[in-house]
């Protein structure tokens, strides 16, 4: 099978963390050649994130999340504070199609790598910048991460139980994957336009703006009915039961709901709690919801989440165990579609990583290549792409402009 793009398209990836690097990774899955450039002084900080793996392993190479978001890239280092380092970035950009960066506003300009400079070198260049709150505006300097973007777009204000005020952060730093997906889309749109016009362009993507559509329903509820929705947690505005119920086992919980009386009767039959007049109609169930939830919990005490979910699904009810990560990965549906892909990566060994979400019939995405070590492909990139001689590359190394070690 061929890769998705047969003509070589090159990406210069200056991004760090998750949102920005995800863009380069998704392009690499299509067959783009992605050159990740890390500053030798300020390497991708996500290399140090959640490094809870074996502490004997090299600290900057054992981050599960870095190794998840940089797969299939060529890893290089450059001292971006040195004129020589900046010059080499420009030489890579001269023959590249895409630059992706998510520095704070103004940093690329200070490096001497603003879009104006780069597009003068390469008018066909598409550059995507991904600041948290935008590159202009009164609060553009504010620092944002996946969680803070999740808060500022309105999601956190809606995340909580129905009966308390505490708000909660989701576990996946939602702003990050949303930013990365939008960034990937932005690159592809601008490249597509370039096919038509012959010109590149700069795309600014404020990550918080990419995330605001996630609360569109609440934004509309506020505007149409002048009501700010309170978090509703495991409940539903009109249906009952609707919730997450404890089952047997240490982490045993099952989620299901009854939109309408037919589904409720199916649930009551499966759980063996039919015939209670307090729960005969939807309005009655909603009125007596605490009692209903207690009765359901009582009925589930000796059952496992898996068996209850399976029985409810067989009865036509949407139901699911509340899966932890290892349970998600061993779910028969996830396994049947080979969603997770084993990848052997230097230093950390073989693990399963999420594979292609879009399964293409002719040109599948390539998802089984590891993330690079710091500076792993310096020699390949500077020799094969820039045509430098080994002696020149040795000199760069000696001057500390490239390297495989973080510089103090």
């Amino acid at each position, binding site marked *: 099978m*061929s890769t998705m*793009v047969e*003509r070589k398209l090159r990406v210069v990836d200056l991004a760090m963390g998750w949102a920005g690097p995800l863009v380069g990774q998704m392009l690499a899955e*299509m067959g783009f050649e992605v050159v990740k450039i890390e500053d030798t002084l300020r390497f991708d900080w996500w290399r140090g994130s959640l490094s*809870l793996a074996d502490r004997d392993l090299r600290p900057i190479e054992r981050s599960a999340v870095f190794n998840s978001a940089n797969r299939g890239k060529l890893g290089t280092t450059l001292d971006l504070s040195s004129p020589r380092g900046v010059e080499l970035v420009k030489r890579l950009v001269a023959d590249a199609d895409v630059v992706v960066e998510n520095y704070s506003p103004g940093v690329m300009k200070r490096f001497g790598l603003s879009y104006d400079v780069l597009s003068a070198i390469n008018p066909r260049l598409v550059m995507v910048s991904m600041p948290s709150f935008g590159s*202009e*505006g*009164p609060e553009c300097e*504010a*620092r944002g*991460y996946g969680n803070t973007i999740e*808060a500022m*777009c*309105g999601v956190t204000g809606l995340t909580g*139980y129905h009966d308390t005020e505490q*708000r*909660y952060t*989701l*576990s*996946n730093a939602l702003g990050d994957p*949303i930013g990365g*997906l*939008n960034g*990937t889309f932005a690159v592809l*749109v601008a490249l*597509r*336009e370039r*096919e038509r016009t012959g010109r590149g362009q700069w*795309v*600014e993507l404020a990550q918080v703006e990419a995330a605001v*559509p996630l*609360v*569109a*329903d609440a934004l*509309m509820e*506020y*505007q149409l*009915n002048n009501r700010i929705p309170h978090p*509703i947690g*495991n409940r539903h505005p009109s249906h009952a039961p609707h*919730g*997450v119920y404890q089952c047997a086992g240490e982490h045993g*919980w099952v*989620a299901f*709901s009854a939109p309408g009386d037919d589904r409720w009767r199916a649930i009551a039959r499966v759980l063996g709690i039919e015939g209670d007049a307090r729960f005969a109609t939807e309005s009655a169930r909603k009125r007596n919801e605490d009692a209903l939830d207690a009765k359901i919990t009582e009925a589930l005490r000796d059952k496992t989440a898996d068996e209850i979910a399976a029985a409810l699904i067989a009865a036509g009810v*949407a*139901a*699911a165990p509340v*899966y*932890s990560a*290892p349970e998600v990965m061993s779910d028969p*549906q*996830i396994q*049947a579609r080979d*969603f*997770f892909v084993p990848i052997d990566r230097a230093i950390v060994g073989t*693990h399963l990583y*999420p594979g292609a*979400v879009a399964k293409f*019939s002719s040109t599948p995405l390539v998802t089984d290549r590891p993330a690079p070590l710091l500076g792993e492909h310096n020699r390949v990139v500077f020799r094969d792409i820039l045509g430098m001689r080994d002696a020149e590359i040795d000199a760069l190394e000696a001057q500390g402009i490239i390297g495989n070690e973080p510089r103090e």
Partner: protein
Amino acid sequence: MRYSSLSGTRVIDLTHYIAGPYATKLLSDVGAEVVKIEPPAGEGGRRTGPLPANARDLDRGGLFAFLNTNKFGVTLNLKHERGRELMFRLLDGADILIENFAPGTLARMGLAPSDLLARFPRLSIVSISNFGQDGPLRDAPLDDLTLFARGGWTFPVGEPDRAPLTPPGSLIQYVAALYGAIAAMQSLFARDMGLGHGQHADISILEAGVSTMIYESVAFQYSGALRVRAGKRFGVGPFMIVTLECRDGYAGLHCVTDRQFESLCELMNRQELVKDERFCTALQRMVNNDALLAIVEPFFLEHDRVWLYREGQNLKIPMVPIPSVAEVLEWEQLKARRFFETIDDPVLGPIRVPGSPLRLSSHRGAPSRPAPRLGEHNREILGGRLGISDRELESMRAGGLI
């Protein structure tokens, strides 16, 4: 905001509710011509909320009005032979078909993806479905509540002594929609950069959700540590990422690096804590997280959200207020950027909707067109494009075809 980047790209939209319509909206907002084809009664999303109180005879809820801007609306009964025939004529010359029916539905309509790909070699099809087009659970029912649960989003969130907490709204549907829009673009790249023909992309909404859970799925394999509910904390680790009550609501604190911790101590005027051996490294701050929280929590309770945001950010601590959706709509930063766009919706009146997050330097962008009324563009598309006469359109309407 509507850009013209994809001008000339033609998309046939057979989607409903959220995951499909948001995917095609992403494409229509950047200039693809999206023809949304609905059954004569309209897609289900038109009648789901939020609806204005006492709304009657609306052909749209508020979410529909947002998700379907810049599209053309055509009705067509695909159960009729004539409806399918017109569908084929619309597909002739189209680049992308996006659908989010239950798997097998297209085939039952006589529109099996493999047949369409054979008949229209340049067409690509993006299918978005709950579980994907195969697998043992393919046809099982799934809604947002159970999608969050099965996809691993619910398990690690909430209070340790309460049930795991379901995330709000339909977040995973939007994630899947983004993959759908990207897949549409990817299939165009593949077709025009080597392959020469279209193909089918199969997207599982469940897998889209699972793809974002790398803190769980991958990190768990590395560390063996199961991430469990940690209340107001963002998991347990060498960081203090926490949602705290303050004088007028809640605020988010993101304190990870030593420098951020030093700044936090400065903000609290508790500089002596920097040298406190309980807190002087990220690891120590993890071990003694409860003791540190006991110091930080009262400080937050004494201050307003906006003060914490301003003063914290001045010290380069990524602190944020937790805004309500009303506050997001009035946020000065987004106002200065003219992010929200006012659309004069023909049914709901003026509404403010999120604009495109893409700022493309080669375009100024044009105002968005409102979501179509049911069958609004029947005459323009079926008449203008396919040459159906007004008289035939009238008889089709009478016959329940449009």
